[in-house]
């Protein structure tokens, strides 16, 4: 039986067999009152629910977004009024700024490796922890601790020590016969230490996966077991499809987050993107241009290019989602 079949098997009863009006509410415990005619207030309701969001958007998001779009066509030193330069910033980015292209490459490498690593680890651990053994709560918390630390100064120091000369990583790898260097200070390896840092903080997607796993109705598994499906089949036929909205969510957000990654590189490299620009993330370069070099217009231009690129990626993901994401609320949308 397909996933959809299992879900639809629990479709509500036909009209004749439905409980009397008010019974549903009584079951759920809402105080009942005489049913009234259903108003077609979808439009109005939609806007009413969105009032806080509209206010936030107008005040704090849209205005600054449009202003930054304007700034991307200007030279703005932060200290004096912006002055218009048209497309000069964009032209400079792609033709006469080799560090810009370096930052793009560094960021793409980081995203391409850290996102899958993080998600796979998170999903595996979430599935592992999604059972009632003793101590699961404690284990969950332990796995989450790295994310709790965030990208703080203390984490940076720990990472520099662990991956620096004669650090723990070096010792462990020499046991495996790999005689290394100071990984975090070597331009060939510094970026990968940041990837490890990102993967280490898999707690956030793990928690989301756990929440999603909890939402999968147990009777689906019962029905599958009755049908004779083994653990592997149950994983691929129930867990993954039912979890697919959550997987999709995590994928999009981790991808966007990885493109925008800033604090790990900032703190570990001391803001320089070093050694030798090997950890110069896109946003780090943007920050340097905007706040250290007084070129806020150029930084805004960089931001909008990133928005366009990541927006395209996201739109692509949304399109692809129609193929593989299964939503329980509308069936196979």
């Amino acid at each position, binding site marked *: 039986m397909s996933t959809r079949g299992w879900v639809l098997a629990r479709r509500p009863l036909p009209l004749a067999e439905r409980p009397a009006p008010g019974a549903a509410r009584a079951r759920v415990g809402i105080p009942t009152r005489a049913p009234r005619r259903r108003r077609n207030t979808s439009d109005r309701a939609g806007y009413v629910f969105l009032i806080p969001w509209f206010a936030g958007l107008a005040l704090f998001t849209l205005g600054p977004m449009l202003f930054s779009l304007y700034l991307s066509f200007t030279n703005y030193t932060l200290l004096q009024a912006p002055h218009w330069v048209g497309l000069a910033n964009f032209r400079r980015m792609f033709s006469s700024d080799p560090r810009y292209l370096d930052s793009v490459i560094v960021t793409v490498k980081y995203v391409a490796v850290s996102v899958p690593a993080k998600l796979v680890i998170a999903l595996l651990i979430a599935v592992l922890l999604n059972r009632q053994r003793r101590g699961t709560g404690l284990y969950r918390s332990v796995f989450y601790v790295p994310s709790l630390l965030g990208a703080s100064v203390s984490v940076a120091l720990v990472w520099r020590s662990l991956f620096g000369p004669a650090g723990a990583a070096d010792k462990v790898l020499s046991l495996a016969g790999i005689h290394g260097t*100071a990984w975090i200070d070597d331009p060939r390896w510094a970026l990968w230490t940041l990837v490890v840092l990102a993967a280490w903080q898999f707690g956030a997607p793990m928690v989301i996966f756990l929440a999603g796993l909890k939402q999968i109705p147990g009777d689906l598994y019962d029905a599958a077991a009755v049908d004779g499906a083994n653990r592997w089949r149950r994983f691929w036929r129930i867990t993954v499809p039912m979890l697919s909205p959550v997987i999709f969510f995590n994928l999009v957000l981790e991808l966007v987050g990885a493109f925008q990654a800033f604090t790990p590189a900032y703190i570990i490299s*001391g803001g320089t993107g070093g050694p030798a620009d090997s950890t110069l993330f896109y946003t780090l370069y943007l920050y340097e241009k905007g706040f250290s070099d007084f070129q806020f217009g150029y930084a805004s231009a960089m931001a909008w290019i990133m928005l366009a690129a990541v927006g395209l990626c996201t739109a692509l993901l949304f399109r692809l989602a129609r193929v593989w994401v299964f939503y329980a609320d509308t069936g196979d949308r």
Partner: protein
Amino acid sequence: MRTPRIRLPWQAALALMASVVALLAAACGSGPAASSAAAGGSGKATITFAWWGDAARAKVTLAAIRLFEKSHPDITVKTEYSPFGDYEQKINTQAAGGNMPDLVTVDRSVQNEYAQRGLLLDLDKYVPGTLNLSGLDASFVASGKTDGKQYTVPMAQNMQAIVVDVTRLKSLGVPLPKPGWTWSDLAAWAKEITTRSHGRWYGIVDPGTLWPAFNSWEIQHGKSLYANGKIAFTAADLAGFWNFTSSLRRSGAGTSAQLTATVDGLPDDEPLLKGRAVAEWDYDSLFQMYSAGTSDKLTLVSLPTVGGKTGMFAQPSMMLGVSATSKYPKQATELLNFLVNSPAAARALGTSRGLFPNLKVRQQLASSATGPAKTVYDYEAANSGDLSPTPAAPPKGDNQLLTMMQRVYQQVAFGQLSPAQAAAQFVSQAKGIIGQ
């Protein structure tokens, strides 16, 4: 069958908490609105003073400020301090928002930038009434001028030096360098250290990433970094410097590329303190901090010379300026005057920023100094006769060259570029940055 409970109490509690938090949030955290409203006509002025530094520096600075407030009961000083790395970004954001602090510590590399962009007040009108600069060295004071106007006043003075770990030297049987030594002397001396310690200690930390080290190099060769607000050094000059530092590195006298890459301005990452090197190029104002980080005995040695020139000069370690949009410029200037002239301030501040600007007060402190502070005073006294004149404040964009130096030299150190190539690249990029 289980009926889920309605979470009515939960949501009511939530709403209640929300309002409480909102109230708390509004109450906690003093806003500038309150102080500026109160300040209007009551005669009591509240000014903000910002600086960069850690908690230790904050303690001594606050002590000095309390002394100021005691002698100026009509002025209240609010303080803002943050770590150096984020200080500039914070000030720039505040400047963009129009609320720069009244008295602000300005880094030398952005002094001209701020002045020329109209962020700082021209202090000439307060001299000599509120601001008495006669007790400071005239050329030292002049270093705070931009386009002939006194926009900033130096807050402390330091000098270039080589910090040397005497204990390790003694254990190797290597003698201390004598003043007047040359760069080739340094190369030999450092190599000796590496050899005798069997690679345990490098002789000296590779100075190739240090913009100020190159500055001194240029002065030693009779040149300068800037002239008339433009670049005055050539790719050949820089290549010469980098060829020398590369030879240090290759011979093992200077630290390896990876170790040099760990140098990020944080004292704790200094190879000397981590036990990896015996000498390091740095400013003497940081000597006390070095001493605190190790139980070894340390000392200061003057820079190697070229043709008898040390390339050293009295460097203002940081500047003080008054914001052009300050509501209380006179009061801010009074605080400035206090911080550069008052003996009480000098005693409170100590040498955390460098030597006190007022010469008479500095003398008084020097005569009673002990320990590492005494070493610094002695060093300055011993070298005051050989100093080159203090260069003018660097033009806009100098701070970018500082980071670029580190970045480009790392490429040389890791073998990605040759010194000549790197120098050429550096100069062409620098030309674009300066005078932008």
